[in-house]
């Protein structure tokens, strides 16, 4: 398959091997098209390569073979300035990874000011707007350890948004949260989806999938086994492996 120029993210033949002799195959030839404004949910058993795929999109992992394009730029080109691409790709981690020595506001402004050389007053103003958007306007001075898990993850989402990304990657954003905090984070993500943000989300939150996802990708052993609309995939999966996995988690 060739590069599809209509996509925001285009993945072709992605292969990733780990280990001294490449004995661990984390990705075994993945193809995926993500169109602008689309919300794509990735599900699959532990070790199926979901995180590796996500981390290859902003090159936190370097593919062993295959190509990835973000908005037309070939991420896998060794000569490309990967920092420019990372500015356009927001990432939200399972463990939040907020900067503990900075306040919520500073967590948001650090990258725009360091990378984009934004003025402090401008960056602060935009950051306040984003904190308000995730419902944390009153927490701008709080340090991460003074926030609950759900609040931290919302700050982390706002931090990624502060760079004005063209696509957002979420790696199990709610799986480190206590059950009562999951909703506040999913609500923020739902709003983002409604506003037309392109999102690739690794998550097993079926409610979110049905409400927001345009398509669901089932991965197993480094391969995309099946792709479909949420209702289609959850209720009438074709592949045996997909059915077994869905029986297991639903």
């Amino acid at each position, binding site marked *: 398959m060739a590069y599809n120029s209509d996509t925001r993210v285009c993945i072709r033949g992605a292969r990733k091997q780990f280990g001294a002799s490449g004995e661990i195959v984390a990705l075994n030839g993945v193809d995926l098209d993500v169109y602008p404004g689309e919300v794509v949910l990735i599900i699959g058993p532990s070790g199926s390569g979901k995180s590796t795929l996500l981390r290859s999109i902003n090159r936190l992992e370097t593919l062993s073979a295959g190509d990835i394009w973000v908005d037309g730029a070939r991420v896998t080109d060794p000569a490309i300035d990967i920092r420019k691409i990372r*500015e356009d790709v927001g990432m939200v981690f399972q463990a939040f*990874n*907020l900067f503990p020595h900075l306040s919520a506001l500073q967590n948001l402004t650090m990258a725009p000011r360091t*990378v984009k050389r934004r003025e402090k007053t401008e960056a602060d103003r935009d950051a306040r707007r984003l904190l308000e958007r995730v419902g944390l306007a009153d927490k701008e001075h709080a340090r991460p350890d003074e926030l609950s898990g759900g609040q931290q993850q919302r700050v982390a989402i706002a931090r990624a948004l502060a760079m004005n990304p063209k696509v957002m990657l979420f790696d199990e954003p709610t799986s480190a949260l206590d059950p009562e905090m999951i909703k506040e984070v999913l609500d923020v993500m739902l709003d983002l989806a409604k506003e037309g943000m392109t999102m690739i989300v690794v998550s097993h939150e079926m409610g979110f999938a049905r409400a927001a996802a345009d398509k669901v990708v089932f991965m197993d052993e480094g391969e995309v086994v099946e792709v479909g609309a949420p209702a289609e995939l959850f209720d009438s999966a074709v592949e045996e492996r997909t059915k077994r996995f869905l029986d297991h988690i639903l």
Partner: protein
Amino acid sequence: MAEIIPKRGDDAPGDVSSSPARLTVNVSDGALIPDRGERSLFSAWRISFFGAIVLLVTLPIVSPSPYLEILRFIPDGVVTTFQVTILSILISLVIGLITGLGRISRNVVLNRIATIYVEVIRGIPLLVQLFYIYFALGQIVQVPRLTAAILAMSICYGAYMGEIFRAGLQSVPKGQMEAALALGLSRRQALRKVILPQTLLIILPPVGNEFIALLKDSSLVSIIAVADLLRRGREFASVTFEYFEAYTVVALVYLVITLFLSKIVSYLETWVQKRGVQ
């Protein structure tokens, strides 16, 4: 926090290269560190500290000759001791930062150079390094005593600081670097804005302990005739032959200083712990 202190004293030079070295808590190199949890230790600190102060006050009153004379004679030495200690600690911090970055560098050459430096320096006694810089290298370029002293202390402690920086840098979770890179920061920007600020906070207590250790080790420089606290005591005694009195005062002054500093370090430790890095 304390577990990032590389164990001192019995580190065999060979153990440096085994990368994420097992680090153990070790405060035995400093003076007794008061711990509010342990009453007996706390009172031991109090007895030692205030006991030493009481002796330093009463001895000159009870017997002004020679104690008052000694107390008048040694302040120059205290100044020199602090001069050597502070300058050495500052230079060793710079060396330590560079060495620590080298030790975690993915550049093989830099990494190897930093590791060799740490191995070599930690394998040679400080006194031998001091002699080496002042007498052996002195045959090639003669440097002033004080400069040689500070140079030797800095180079030696730079290696230990390097290990503290390495442990501190490595104690920052991997996700911090990844989050910074994902936002578009370069590795260098991420180090400066994200990793180092967290490292500096974490290493504050162990650096304080190094300061105390260095202050005590600085007494070695008296051997190359730098007029530090110990040297001043010896100068006094060699004229009056009152060795017992002179060295008693010298010991008491060192004790008061190190006990005082170790109290500060223990406060730093609690403060850093309260700041609780995630």
